[in-house]
Structures are given as structure tokens and as C-alpha cells.
């Protein structure tokens, strides 16, 4: 435990994160409700991206369908709420549903490597989407599901909920990634044989990684739909959501956890800033992300951390 705490206190990433958090906490007094709304979405995306990054760091596999986990959590919560179940119960149920989804996904995935894993995760998303559309009469289909409850009608309250949620999730995920067990897992993700030779049950730990990633994704998905007031395929299940999550994590810096959150905030703010471009905003954001992949492989955190290491 003390090892973990020591690791956290000396980590540069933690200090960067703290600085960013302090700045973000001052915003409700400075910016308009509209910008707070945009950031609220960005924070939930931050949790999506951090969960994805954890899976990537541990399993060393790219999950192309994070929206399967996000969507499972979101829709489970939404459907229950539409039938009158109280919000807090729905949130827990959302996390649980995503956990179940994570386990279901893990079973074939853990036997596969490389492109097959990625394809399996992508297929999972397509299946969920089809499922929701075909049973449109219960799920609202492409139209979406309107929730009975909503977190709050006040932009500032919603902002605090989201920021708080992101901070707590981020702290837990980051601590996990830097704990001794976490570091060993990271190594085993990159050298499976070596890790097994050292006696670690790689499969069991990869499964754990899946489950953690799933719970956080699902919970964040549920929180987000309670913020928006609607759950729709386009906001929590579509492949494009997953793509945005991956872009955010890569943009921020893979395997840093903190980077994923920063990447999400940057991406969503940039998307809004480009709104005047109208139709072309998606084009430009994708273009920028492509350039990052080509030239700034280690993302924003890579730039920040590397600079500090220079004497």
C-alpha cells in the first residue's frame, strides 16, 4: 500500500492531473453554462477513455468496441428507469450489466490475439446495435429512450457531478495501473510468456482487467444518459462513439490513464469549437487525430512528459 502511495506522489502524471483538476474546478465561476455543459459530456467521455486505456495497458489489446460496454450500462440503466426504478438503483444496475457484458466479451476475446480480438469487440457493438433497433418497441430503437429521472436541471450541479465522478474513477484507475499488481499486469500484457513463467495467472488477471474496464465504462454510460435525459444508439452504442473514445485515449497518450482524460476534454472542446465549420467539423477532427497518429504517437502526455525529462 505504501509502495503505491509513494509511486503516486512521485509520479509526474499525478501532478499534471492535479493542476488540471484545480483549473477545472474554478470554471463554474468563470465560463458560461453552455461550456459547462460541453465539459460535462467531456468528463464522462474521460471515464470512457480511461477505462479503455486500462484495458489497453493490461491486456495489450485494442478494444474496438468500447461502446458495447458503455451501451450495455447505459441502456440497462435507461430501460430500468423507464419502468420506474429509482435512479440510484439503475446506476448500480448499469454497472452490473456492463460487467456481465465484459465477462461475455472476455470469454472469446481471451482466446484470441491481434486482429481477431479487435474484430470480436467490433462485432459485439454491431450486435448490440441491431438488438436495440430490432426491439425498438421496448428500447426506443433509433429514436432513443426518454428517461423519467434526470440528474439535475442545473448546469452547475451537473458539472460537479461529472467532475467528481471523473476524478474518483480516474484516481481508482490510475492507482490500479500503478500498483505493484498493476505494473506486473502491464508487463505481462506485453510479454505473456515471461509473466506466466513468473507464475502469474495471466488469463485470470486479464479477465479482471476486462471487468474493471467494463464496470467503469458502464457506470459512466449510465451517468451520462441520466445527464442527457435520453439514451440513444447514436450517443452510447454507435461505432463512432467507440472511435471517439480510442482517438481521445491515443491523442492523450496511451498507457497513461491521465492522458485519456485530458485527450477526451481536448477532443470534445475542439469538436465544439469547430462547430461553426458545420458539416466539416467531423472531417477536421478526424484529420487532426490522423495527424496525431502519424506524427505525435505518444500523444499530449507524451509531449508533456518528455519535455520535463529534458535536463
Amino acid at each position, binding site marked *: 500500500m505504501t509502495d503505491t502511495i509513494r509511486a503516486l506522489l512521485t509520479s509526474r502524471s499525478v501532478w499534471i492531473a492535479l493542476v488540471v483538476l484545480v483549473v477545472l474546478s474554478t470554471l463554474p465561476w468563470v465560463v458560461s453554462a453552455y461550456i459547462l455543459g460541453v465539459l460535462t459530456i467531456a468528463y464522462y467521455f474521460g471515464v470512457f477513455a480511461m477505462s479503455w486505456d486500462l484495458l489497453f495497458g493490461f491486456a495489450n489489446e485494442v478494444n474496438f468496441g468500447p461502446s458495447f460496454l458503455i451501451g450495455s450500462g447505459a441502456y440497462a440503466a435507461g430501460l430500468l428507469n423507464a419502468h420506474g426504478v429509482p435512479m440510484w438503483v439503475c446506476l448500480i444496475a448499469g454497472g452490473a450489466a456492463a460487467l456481465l457484458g465484459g465477462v461475455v466479451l472476455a470469454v472469446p476475446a481471451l482466446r484470441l490475439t491481434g*486482429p*481477431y480480438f479487435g*474484430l*470480436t469487440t467490433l*462485432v459485439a457493438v454491431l450486435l448490440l446495435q441491431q438488438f436495440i433497433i430490432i426491439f425498438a418497441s421496448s428500447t426506443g430503437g433509433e429514436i432513443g429512450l426518454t428517461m423519467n429521472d434526470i440528474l439535475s436541471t442545473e448546469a452547475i450541479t451537473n458539472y460537479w457531478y461529472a467532475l467528481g465522478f471523473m476524478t474518483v474513477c480516474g484516481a481508482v484507475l490510475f492507482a490500479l495501473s500503478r500498483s505493484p499488481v498493476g505494473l506486473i499486469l502491464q508487463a505481462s500484457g*506485453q510479454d505473456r510468456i515471461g509473466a506466466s513463467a513468473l507464475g502469474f495467472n495471466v488469463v485470470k488477471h486479464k479477465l479482471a482487467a476486462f471487468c474493471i474496464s467494463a464496470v467503469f465504462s458502464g457506470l459512466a454510460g449510465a451517468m451520462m444518459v441520466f445527464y442527457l435525459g435520453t439514451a440513444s444508439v447514436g450517443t452510447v452504442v454507435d461505432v463512432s462513439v467507440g472511435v471517439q473514445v480510442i482517438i481521445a485515449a491515443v491523442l492523450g497518450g496511451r498507457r497513461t490513464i491521465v492522458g485519456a482524460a485530458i485527450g477526451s476534454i481536448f477532443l470534445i472542446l475542439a469538436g465544439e469549437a469547430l462547430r461553426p465549420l458545420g458539416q*466539416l467539423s467531423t*472531417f477536421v477532427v*478526424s484529420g487532426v487525430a490522423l495527424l496525431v497518429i502519424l506524427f505525435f*504517437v505518444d500523444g499530449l502526455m507524451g509531449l508533456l512528459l518528455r519535455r520535463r525529462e529534458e535536463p
Partner: protein
Amino acid sequence: MLTVQILIDGFAISALYGLGAVGFTLMFGVCGVLNLAHGATMVVAAVTAWVVAGQYAANPWVAAVAGTAAGVLTAFATYFLVVRPIERSSSVPAAEREIFVLTGTLLWGIMIQEAVAYFYTDNPKTVRPLIAGIMQIGGVRTPINELVIAVICWAVIGLLWLLVNRSKAGKVLLAASINPRALSILGFELSRVYLLVWTIYGVLAGIAGVLLATFLGASSAQSSQLTASAFSIVVLGGLGSVYGSLLAAYVVGYLETLTAYLISPTYRTVPALVLLVLVVYVRPHGLLGRR
């Protein structure tokens, strides 16, 4: 009557799926690239054919050639602007190269899709059938175009087979798909091989896109659906196996057609997806896959 209808419709659509899938699987088999900009490439070909036919009042065959050329150009753009730079980049760790290429082609595909929508809207584009009119087959009224599509798809696949099995370039391709390192040790320029594959891919995807425009119509909004469809088929058949892709294309094509006719068009995609799930759980390397 219904049986003949199903047989004919299923055949045409399967042939079209097959052509797209073969290109996709060839790209993976030889170059190791899963081109997620596949659907967007097909759409570019379709829209180009539409533009040439409309703006320049060209006949459908000329438009088809223009569309195919656009497909090849897009394939080259994908290779030179996205895939090659990533593969040659020194800052990407070797183990993650595949993932970066995948993400890169995904983003590139989105860019193409948005660009097409910006200039031409996401309304589906159609091209006049290559040969118009209908004919009666076994008592079923069938557009001649459907037969033309099936014939063209199989002719192209046949030419591809000849190329791979009977020409020197083809043998090099085959070897590259089995063991690229050995090939380069023997002195063959791998980059030339890759260029050949991307050209073939561009032709296949281009023709598939143009034919789609004459048959069902194509819109930029369908780009990801087309990509998803192609790789579902390819995974089912076995990544890298051309025969597998063809077999899977027909399995999926007929499953979809049967479902659409006998159950309901709404559930059209379900059996194929369920089959895909089963395959991934039970036999992840696909029906005829070899890795």
C-alpha cells in the same frame, strides 16, 4: 416461384458481397492490413461513376470505368498517405503497428465519408444499369442488370485467380502472403508487391462500388456498414483465405435473402450476425482460415 426468386436475388447480392470481401481479405492476407476505409473506397467509386454519368452525360460503361479508376486512386491514397507512413514510422512500436494502421484507416475512412457528404450530400447515388430491361427466368421477372452484375463479379474473380495462379507476379503475391520475410531475403522488393496488391484491391473495391450503385445505390452514410459487412464475411470465411471469403459471401448473401423473404426484411442481418458470433466462439479462424 418464390424459390427461384430467392435463388436469383441471393446469387446477385452474394456475388457483389464476394467481390468486396475478396479484395478485403487479399489485403489482409498479403499485406497484413485491415483496411477500415474499405466502405468509403467503394462509395467514392460509386459517387464518381454517378458524377461522370450525370455531369458529363456519359454512358454507364464509361462511368463505370471512371468509378473504378477512382477506386484505385483512393486505394493508392490510403496506402501512401496512411498505411505506408505508419508502417515505416520509427516512433510506433512494432507490436502496435497493426493497431495504429487499423485506427489510421478508420479515421481516413471517416474523412473520406465526410468529404463525399460535404460535396455531394449523403443522398444515395445511383447509376443507370449497365444493361437495362428485364427478362424472365423460370417465371420470375428479373432485371437484366442483376445477371450482368453476377457475371462481371465472377469474371473479375476468375481473372484474379488466373493472375495469382498462372502469372509470375501472382506467384510472388502468393509467396508474400505466406512468408514475406523469406521473400525479401530472396531479393524481391516487397514494396513492389504491396503496390500490386493495393492496385488489385483498388480495382476490386472500385468495381464493387460501381456495381452497387447500379443495383441498389450507394450513399456516404453507408460507408461503415459496407466495411462492417465486408469484414464480417471475411472473418466468417477466414481472414486471408480468398476461397473462404467467397464461400462466406454466399452463405451470408443467402442467409440474408432467405431471412428477408421468408421472415421479414427487418431481421435481415440477424442470422448472419448470430452465425458470426458462433464462429468467433467456436472456430475463431473462420470456416476456411488457416492461421
